[in-house]
């Protein structure tokens, strides 16, 4: 049995993390608008996708060292619940939901904001102060997050699937903050193909540099082999994740509706820069250090 004080501490970390990561989205008009104009089926899909992401994150980088799937599912629900609650309270405080609105508008706005909050709760619970758990509280069961993240074959080599999931989480967390804004459409449609090409190359290079420095510091990368080849493979995978995440988020926010293919690609590449930063550098933050 975990003492109540310890649970409270974990939940507090979760709440802080949830607010910290979702604050930009809570203050973004386009997200509120998406809340009432999105089709309910889209929202269900969004909830399920977030839940899948939470499952993955909790499994590979979550709080419990000895997590089995039951525990991971329970943890994910425990993050989604507060996510919905925090989102509702924040939106009510900001005057974005009120009793004069229809239920569908309220539920839409709360749900759409709650998903980022839930990911933030998850990251916050696992990361904020997680590393000092043992010494901090003196509780025997608080394993440092460091060992939990390293669910690979050896302590220094994080499982490939785990890296993928953490990179996905990082990409979503970073890209989601800018994805719903009008700016992405503006940049995407006003950029020339040369600009877009430059953004893509810079994104890949940034990914490579970050991966290389992580590789240097912590001997962790996407590829089991070390060296230049590993960095190349790692950057390609990172950029692929970044583009996939960007395209999915943009599609979700209806940014592809009625747009020419080149505009869709442009937006994806523009957002891909943020997603690459999240997928590569975000991993440093999300993964216990």
């Amino acid at each position, binding site marked *: 049995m975990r003492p109540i004080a310890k649970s409270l501490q974990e939940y507090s970390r979760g709440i802080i993390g949830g607010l910290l990561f979702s604050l930009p989205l809570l203050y973004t008009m386009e997200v509120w608008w998406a809340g*009432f*104009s999105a089709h*309910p089926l889209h929202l*269900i899909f969004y909830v399920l996708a977030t839940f899948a992401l939470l499952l993955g994150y909790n499994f590979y980088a979550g709080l419990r060292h000895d997590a089995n799937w039951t525990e991971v599912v329970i943890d994910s*629900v425990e993050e989604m619940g507060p996510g919905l609650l925090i989102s509702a309270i924040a939106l009510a405080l900001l005057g974005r939901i009120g009793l004069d609105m229809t239920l569908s508008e309220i539920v839409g706005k*709360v749900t759409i904001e709650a998903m980022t909050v839930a990911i933030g709760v998850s990251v916050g619970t696992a990361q904020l102060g997680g590393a000092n758990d043992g010494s901090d509280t003196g509780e025997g069961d608080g394993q440092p997050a460091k060992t939990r993240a390293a669910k690979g074959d050896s302590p220094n080599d994080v499982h490939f699937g785990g890296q993928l999931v953490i990179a996905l989480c990082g990409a979503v967390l970073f890209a989601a903050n800018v994805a719903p804004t009008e700016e992405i459409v503006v940049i995407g449609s006003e950029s020339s193909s040369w600009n877009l090409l430059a953004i893509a190359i810079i994104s890949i290079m940034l990914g490579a540099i970050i991966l290389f420095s992580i590789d240097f510091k912590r001997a962790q990368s996407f590829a089991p082999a070390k060296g230049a080849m590993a960095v190349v493979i790692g950057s390609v995978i990172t950029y692929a994740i970044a583009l996939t995440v960007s395209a999915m988020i943009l599609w979700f926010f209806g940014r592809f509706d009625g747009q020419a293919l080149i505009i869709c690609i442009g937006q994806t590449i523009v957002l891909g820069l943020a997603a690459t930063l999240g997928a590569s550098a975000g991993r440093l933050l999300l993964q216990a250090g």
Partner: protein
Amino acid sequence: MKKNKLEKNWFEWIVFAVGLMLVLATLSYLAYDAATITDAPPSIEVRMGEPLQRPHNFIVPITLINHGDQTADGVLVEVVLESGGEEKERGELTVAFLPRRSTREGWVAFQTDPRTVERTKARVLGYGKP
């Protein structure tokens, strides 16, 4: 598995139960919403309230109700004051978003007292798809 189950205290089970309820309630509502929603485009009803006299002008309260299942973006409403088949004054109101099945309120301002004219007509001019 057994060990993990034992690790949870009553407080965590309560949080889990509340969380599960919230998630299930949200999903069920969304599922219900998805099942009952139609493709019906915005259908906007304009209701006018009693004109009010303000220090500098007269205002007519306007209530917009969207009976359709799609959101209307940038709803433009026109209110015309007519006397003897002749237009006395024209006013406009723009509402940024009118979500499906929702109501939004506003006012249209006039220099002419709307209570002195024969007819006050209000209509929606147009709106976009968000």
